[in-house]
């Protein structure tokens, strides 16, 4: 009897049994909650005559979009409009991240400069840009850009091929003719070979201590192959120049002012945060490291490249990831200045025309979630790569 009771007791008080029990209960509650939300939503939508489902994705959108990276017209589907918006978001986020990183690192390093003026300029940059709401900055750049630029008929021009006016920047488009695909294959092959060279050079250096000028060799390889193949195929590349026709320029590549202003504002704003991240990261590397490097006779720029930056990066990368994610999410402020991003095109126009808020907001949230997770993944991989060998 005694033993039986204590057996049951010990079974009930067993940690893993308890844990299992609570997990089952939690799972049940979550399932119930989801069931309630789904059925209730469906009933509410039916009751209020709201359409539901994803059929609308195959229907003609009937609206036009100002900037599209793929072929698109009002007879394209809502799904196409989703892709157009998504690509526009990726474009502005991609360029924004590139510039934010360059500006951010520059300003961050400037803040640590021993030159008083340079350090103060960098400090002022950070303090001002960090403290003005981003939306205001976007408007500022947008209207500053529009106001500063002339009308199409008075465009600023360069060599009759670059034109700048308040409708955008127009540049010649490169048109690749027949036989040019081989050039691209070769380009890819040389890039892959170069990556191989880098890995091999690093391994060799770890093994023997000898350095190999991987950077120069691979640059020469890529550029050399590119130009030789261009010449060998008889330059199958031509240019299409923008031309003033009626209201505006036609032909060539067009960068709309909304894209320019938005990228500019996002990059400048995010750079002010990145600068602080970089400064913090560099300051986290102890002074002794620099002194030790100096004493073995390394030059200043090598100290920075070989000693400080690799160590600082380990501190910098996690918060930097955050800034990249912020920039991507902030790009949804695009709607304020008519840049046709995912939120404006799909969660805006398409949502208004179909009324399918749940499906559309769901898809848009899915995209941002995916982008966040994807960025984190890439940066985690990078971070692992940057770790000091012994730490792996």
């Amino acid at each position: 009897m005694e033993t039986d009771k204590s057996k049951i007791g010990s079974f009930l008080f067993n940690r893993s049994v308890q844990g299992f029990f609570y997990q089952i209960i939690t799972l049940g509650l979550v399932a119930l909650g989801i069931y309630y939300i789904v059925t209730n939503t469906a009933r509410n939508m039916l009751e209020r005559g709201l359409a539901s489902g994803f059929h609308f994705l195959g229907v003609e959108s009937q609206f036009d979009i100002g900037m599209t990276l793929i072929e698109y017209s009002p007879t394209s589907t809502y799904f196409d409009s989703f892709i157009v918006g998504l690509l526009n978001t990726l474009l502005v986020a991609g360029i924004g991240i590139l510039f934010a990183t360059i500006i951010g690192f520059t300003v961050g390093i400037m803040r640590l400069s021993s030159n008083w003026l340079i350090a103060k300029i960098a400090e002022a940059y950070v303090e001002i840009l960090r403290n003005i709401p981003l939306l205001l900055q976007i408007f500022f750049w947008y209207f500053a850009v529009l106001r500063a630029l002339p009308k199409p008929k008075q465009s600023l021009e360069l060599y009759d091929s670059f034109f700048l006016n308040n409708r955008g920047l127009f540049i010649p488009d490169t048109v690749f003719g027949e036989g040019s695909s081989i050039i691209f294959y070769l380009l890819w092959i040389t890039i892959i070979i170069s990556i191989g060279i880098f890995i091999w050079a690093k391994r060799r250096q770890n093994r023997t201590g000898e350095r190999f000028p991987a950077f120069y060799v691979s640059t020469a390889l890529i550029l050399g192959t590119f130009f030789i193949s261009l010449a060998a195929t008889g330059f199958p590349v031509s240019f299409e120049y923008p031309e003033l026709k009626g209201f505006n320029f036609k032909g060539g590549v067009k960068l709309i002012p909304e894209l320019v202003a938005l990228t500019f504002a996002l990059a400048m704003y995010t750079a002010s945060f990145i600068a602080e991240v970089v400064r913090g990261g560099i300051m986290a590397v102890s002074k002794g490291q620099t002194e030790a490097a100096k004493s073995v006779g390394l030059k200043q720029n090598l100290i920075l490249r070989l000693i400080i930056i690799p160590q600082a990066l380990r501190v910098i990368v996690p918060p930097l990831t955050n800034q990249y994610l912020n920039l991507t999410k902030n790009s949804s402020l695009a709607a304020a200045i008519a840049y046709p991003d995912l939120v404006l095109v799909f969660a805006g126009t398409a949502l208004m025309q179909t009324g399918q808020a749940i499906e559309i907001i769901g898809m848009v949230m899915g995209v941002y979630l995916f982008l966040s997770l994807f960025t984190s993944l890439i940066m985690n991989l990078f971070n692992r790569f940057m770790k000091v060998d012994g730490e792996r």
Partner: protein
Amino acid sequence: MNTMRISFLGLVCSVLMVPAAFAGTLDTVKSQGFFNCGVSQGVPGFSNPDADGNWSGIDVDVCRAVSAAIFGDPDKVKYVPLTAKERFTALQAGEIDVLSRNTTWTLSRDAQIGLEFAGVNFYDGQGFMVRKDSGITSAMELDGASVCTNLGTTTELNMADFFRANGMAYEPVVFEKADEVVNAYDEGRCDTYTTDKSGLAAQRTKLADPDAHVVLPETISKEPLGPVVREGDGDWADVVRWSLNAMIEAEEFGLTQSNAKTECALTSNPVVARLCGKEGGTGAGLNLGDSWSYDIVTKVGNYGDVYEKHVGENTPVGLARAGSPNASYKNGGVLYAPPAR
């Protein structure tokens, strides 16, 4: 990120709210003593706030009429300014009870988005505005133009139709807020600004130099604008619909804000007597007091009073009523109210 907030709110509400909560808007409104009216963020003559935040305009007066009908007081209304994009979600989410904000009645909005239109208070159509010095005199000359307009409007679809039908190219430049459309157009971002012609007339007053612009003659669409309520609450829709009808019918029978008191005392016409709340007991069917329509006319005015006060020829908006569809059917327009009996 107000829009995101509202869309999210809409999501949460449609997920959590029990349908029954939407059943009796009229009862809820009566017991809380006011209702929420969704308006624009400022379209002169239609719904526009003054320096002290008091709203006025013909769209605002629809809400004031509803308030007068229910409470005998036109000012039991809270105004919620909304962008074109936010408006339907705000209505569905219960943030507003009536949407009176130059909203076009279309099939998809009526049948697909869970809205119910309660009538038409302005018959409009889409037009284009250009700078005078551009030398353009017809919308058919707009091939290749950059076109500024508002997100989430019928305008976006109509312009796509128009340019496609006429084999012309164009560059849409679509902003979320109306003021940004006006600013961008004023700064020269676009060759033309398109929206409802009433909207053009109203927004034009906000331009740096209104006289430097001209509205082109073409009207490319039908835009019947009117108040909207949530689908599925017929009693509430009736109150809004008949408040508007009463304003129109009062004008048809010569009952104005200034003469209503004396006319109502003297009248021998049964239609007028019903509008004056002296006969017929029209309030009962709407769950309102019998003086509902009298209160509308005396405290807000009939349709003509309201039109001339806010958008008529003697206002900055300056839309002539004679010869337009907004004239009473008695004067060759299409404004015609079903009988309030």
